[in-house]
């Protein structure tokens, strides 16, 4: 009969009992120094993974405060051989025990990410108080425009107001939109939280007709109506909260990075804004082909939008591909006669707004 000297702790006192351990059928028996246990091998738990040449600490599922230390040797090898689950390895129960908590953690993470970054922002954007929208807009505007000057030439400003009124009509609340031109040397337009729409001077320079500018502004009005910028801002706050929560610190995004994130809308949001713009132009009898021409002229001047690079850019950028956007622009429905957006005088004044 193979047996071994061993050390046993009963979990009640710190006395190290010198015991003898031996196997009896499917049980291990521990006896000596006023201790006596008979443990079924099936209930043995290894505190660490067994390794050859090293002693092994064991406990039993019926008495988990106890410890049995078996020295390295033939007896320990026999115990491990008779009790395969001590080696760990792959068992259904063990795998479930490891995988289940992690699956729960990952599912929880996914749920948190969805709630914080998708569901909540889109819903909260509509219930955000007016004062918060304005304040967010002011902060974003300051960070976006930086040193750039607002273009305030009086005749140009009057023409800009006329353009806004032509698009918004009489139904809009008086402060629903706040259309501004800034002297920024890139061709672009932005919809900010709170209804502020920033058009760059370069965009107005590039446009050949007032319909082109009107199309771009209509698109940004779509972003405002759908509260896309507000949702973006809430998404950034949610992201910051998550980062703070996970790292336990305050690794806040920089202001500039945050602004870019707020103003980068998803492709779905861009499509929504495009549809809104086309709808609005039809309602106001504005020729949408102006917007089409504007997109086409953008395509001509941007080498990256051609060929392989153009396709890659279409895939990675948040705006739907230029071709796709041009494709959905159809002429006004039959029976609607386009009316000019601005008089020739107003258009010339608008072109000089930054001058």
């Amino acid at each position: 009969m193979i047996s071994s000297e061993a050390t046993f702790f009963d979990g009640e006192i710190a006395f190290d009992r010198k015991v003898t351990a031996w196997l009896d059928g499917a049980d291990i028996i521990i006896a000596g120094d006023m201790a006596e246990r008979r443990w079924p091998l099936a209930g043995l738990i290894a505190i660490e993974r067994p390794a050859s040449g090293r002693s092994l600490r064991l406990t039993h599922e019926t008495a988990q405060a106890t410890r049995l230390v078996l020295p390295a040797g033939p007896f320990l090898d026999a115990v491990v051989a008779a009790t395969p689950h001590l080696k760990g390895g792959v068992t259904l129960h063990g795998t479930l025990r490891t995988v289940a908590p992690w699956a729960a953690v990952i599912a929880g993470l996914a749920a948190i990410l969805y709630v914080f970054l998708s569901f909540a922002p889109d819903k909260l954007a509509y219930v955000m108080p007016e004062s918060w929208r304005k304040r967010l807009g002011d902060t974003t505007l300051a960070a976006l425009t930086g040193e750039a000057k607002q273009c305030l030439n009086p005749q140009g400003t009057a023409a800009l107001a006329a353009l806004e009124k032509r698009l918004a009509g009489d139904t809009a609340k008086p402060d629903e939109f706040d259309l501004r031109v800034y002297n920024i040397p890139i061709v672009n337009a932005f919809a900010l939280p709170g209804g502020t729409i920033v058009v760059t001077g370069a965009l107005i320079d590039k446009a050949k007709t007032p319909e082109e500018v009107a199309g771009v502004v209509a698109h940004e009005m779509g972003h405002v109506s759908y509260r896309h910028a507000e949702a973006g801002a809430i998404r950034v706050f949610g992201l910051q909260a998550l980062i703070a929560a996970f790292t336990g610190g305050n690794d806040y995004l920089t202001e500039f990075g945050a602004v870019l994130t707020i103003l980068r809308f998803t492709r779905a949001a861009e499509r929504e804004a495009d549809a809104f713009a086309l709808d609005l132009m039809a309602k106001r009898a504005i020729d949408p082909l102006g917007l089409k021409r504007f997109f086409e002229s953008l395509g001509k001047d941007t080498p990256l939008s051609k060929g392989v690079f153009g396709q890659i850019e279409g895939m990675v950028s948040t705006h739907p591909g230029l071709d796709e956007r041009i494709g959905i622009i159809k002429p006004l429905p039959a029976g609607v006669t386009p009316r000019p957006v601005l008089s020739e005088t107003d258009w010339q004044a608008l072109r000089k707004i930054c001058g």
Partner: protein
Amino acid sequence: MVLTPPMDALAPPIPPGPVTAPEPVRIDYVPRDGLGKLTLVNALLTIVTLTIYRFWAKTNVRKHIWSCVHVNGEPLEYTGRGMELFKGFLVVLGVFILPVVVISTVLQLTFGPEHPALVIFQLVIFLLISVFWGMALYRARRYQLSRTLWRGIRGTMTGSPWMFSLIYFGALILRSLTLGWSTPAMNLNIQERMIGEMRFGSMPFRFKGRAGPLYGQYAICWFLSLAAIIGLIVIGVMLAMSAGDAIWQFFAELSLGSLRNALILFGLVFAAILLFSLAQGLLWSFYIAKELSVFAGYTTFGDGRFRFDATPGSLVALAIGNFLITILTLGFGLPFVQQRLVRYLCDRVTVDGMVNLDAIAQSRQPVDRAGEGLADAFDVGGI
């Protein structure tokens, strides 16, 4: 009024055991292979899981380091689980971190970024963190002791984390009010709780002594430190004066956006801070070594009295080594920092006298179910 008997009187009688006798106590660090591999796996999984794995990583490192500490030939065993730390984190996330983030966001949106309300809120949060700092330390120690097994017996803390938190906060305030002179007395108070309320099974640690013997060394370090600060200022002013007009030239160029000058200024400031911290560290290591060995001498366990052979040189070497490991591994080498720390303790702590270890009975204190949420949030709590 009902008289409640002390905790141990409630414990069932110790089952008849063999006759026990006091024995000397020996603490050794017996290194094992595998810490490097563990560190690597932990680092990878921590990155992949967006830091959520850190609780399991911490647990694995503790299991390793604990098992290297042998007391009278029998290793310690760490029985904590990553899930317990994760639960503690979730609690603090829910009751502290998320409310703070949400409230400060709402305040910022309602009043704008530089409104007094926001400043007041941040001050309140700072105050709350200072008040709960001690609680975080105490609860972390209590959790770790309750998960430390030696010969099948676990440790515990018997005092109140609230009381400790209050004393710790008081010490913080007093230190700034007395320009540091309350430090030895208040550190004594803190350790009276932190060590004096520690138990291993049924046997308490006791901490008893006076702060008086520390004040000589403290005074020397305090005045030398003051002299070092004054000296640094004098040297700075003299350098500036000897440079004369060149300095105005330098700042004029800097204000015009000279990158070279900005780099030079950054380098100089960095070097000055490094030099200053090094000088302060060297100076104060004399006091810290003194405090460690005096406090160890005040600590008893049964009939054994502790001795801590802490020397200024070895402390500085330990600190610099750990600093370099942390910097060079971008913080992922933390397990080795902790190993060095525990090893230092094991190598230099000895116990004089005989302790009847065999007679220690299991602790009857309730055990925390989740651990260290606050300590994780504040990034304190030792290993």
